[in-house]
């Protein structure tokens, strides 16, 4: 399973590095979202710092939908899925591989968004450990849920409208726990963040487990 996962993750990342769709389309969208949020809230420094945790996670969630569509598009054609079956790839391995690739892409996006908040919103992070833990746990949860729901959402012509409707409601716990953890990180409330980091960890474990168990049946013809 892990060998298959490494193969699939390597393939997805290689395709992204060569096509640069994520680099030129998805990442600019995330930065644009941050700028538009700042325009909507006005130039008040205090207001921007106060709203920064919510804006960070909203920008991340909306970008995750684009990442999920992109990740699914790589697997989209029936011929690709048929080839994976003929090669004897374990569906659980395919799921894990796609999750790892998406996780790494989301971590890059989170770094970019945090740098954006530091430079544009003048956010001061007090507890980096809490912020990094929240970002890593959330990225894993977002990646596993996105790959699972990408497989659920069917063919390409419908996926662009259906996937956000299916995916965003179930990401609500990540949004709530992520915002609380971020608030703890910028207010030195490290003690308060434990419960919310726990929520992020449980979400990640549950969706990774569900994906490993259900990805195979979902990909059957």
């Amino acid at each position, binding site marked *: 399973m892990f060998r298959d996962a490494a193969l699939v993750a390597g393939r997805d990342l290689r395709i992204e590095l060569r096509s640069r769709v994520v680099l030129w389309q998805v990442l600019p969208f995330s930065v644009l979202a941050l700028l538009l949020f700042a325009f909507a809230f006005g130039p008040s420094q205090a207001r921007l710092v106060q709203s920064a945790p919510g804006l960070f996670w909203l920008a991340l969630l909306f970008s995750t939908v684009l990442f999920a569509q992109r990740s699914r598009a790589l697997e989209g054609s029936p011929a690709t899925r048929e080839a994976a079956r003929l090669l004897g790839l374990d569906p659980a391995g395919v799921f894990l591989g796609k999750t790892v690739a998406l996780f790494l892409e989301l971590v890059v996006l989170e770094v970019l968004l945090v740098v954006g908040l530091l430079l544009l919103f003048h956010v001061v992070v007090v507890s980096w450990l809490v912020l990094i833990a929240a970002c890593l746990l959330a990225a894993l949860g977002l990646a596993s849920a996105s790959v699972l729901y990408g497989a659920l959402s069917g063919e390409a012509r419908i996926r662009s409208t*259906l996937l956000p*409707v299916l995916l965003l409601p179930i990401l609500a716990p990540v949004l709530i726990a992520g915002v609380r953890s971020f608030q703890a990180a910028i207010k030195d409330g490290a003690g308060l963040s434990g419960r919310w980091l726990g929520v992020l960890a449980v979400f990640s474990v549950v969706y990774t487990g569900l994906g490993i168990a259900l990805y195979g049946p979902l990909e*059957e013809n």
Partner: protein
Amino acid sequence: MRKQLDRWLGPLAFVLVALDVWLGLWITPPDQVQGDYVRLVYVHPAVAWVALYVAFGMAGLCSVLYLWPRTRSLAFDYAAAAAVEVGVVFTILTCITGAIWGRPTWGVWWTWDARLTSTALLAVMFLGYLALRRVPAEPHVRARRCAVMALVAAVDVPIVHFSVNWWNTLHQGATVLNANLSPRIHGSMAWTLLLSFIAFTLLFVWMVIARYRLEVLRHSGENKDLDRALSERRAEGAEA
């Protein structure tokens, strides 16, 4: 037996709902604290019971039965679809009746309370399920996707149920099935409440049976259309 059920279930459900409304509005006394606002208790908890536990419980069970290889049958997929469709209607009714009670009691139509928020999320997730059902696909592929979706969404049901215990919420705790199993409602009010649960459950069963039959007819219609189209193409081929 089936015809008898068809003939009596719907009218019986409507008569019981009408009886519930009559008892709730004219016979039972007003509450000491809430006054006449308490009369919504003869609608709102029963509607919520049907939506959260009966409808989504049935959808979850049918989805498990579909996914289990030994019991795999499209009948369970149709039953789950029927339960979710009616369940979404009852969930929206739960939110509406709750809002009607909340406005005079809490002073707002809606508040970001854990019970209300998790119920709204549940409704949106099952709306997503209904959207997923509309995606054209081979019946078993669609059934598999929808079964997984229903199971993932059903995880929210215990969160909705226990939200009043896990978080400090405005929404009151359970009146009948509370932790001590000691009902906090008595006399004619308790009997009317019980009647409301029976009436709305029967109404749900009647609606689900009707919706299930529609689903079966729709799929057999689709198959007949496909068979006709195939024989027409074959006939064209034979003529050529």
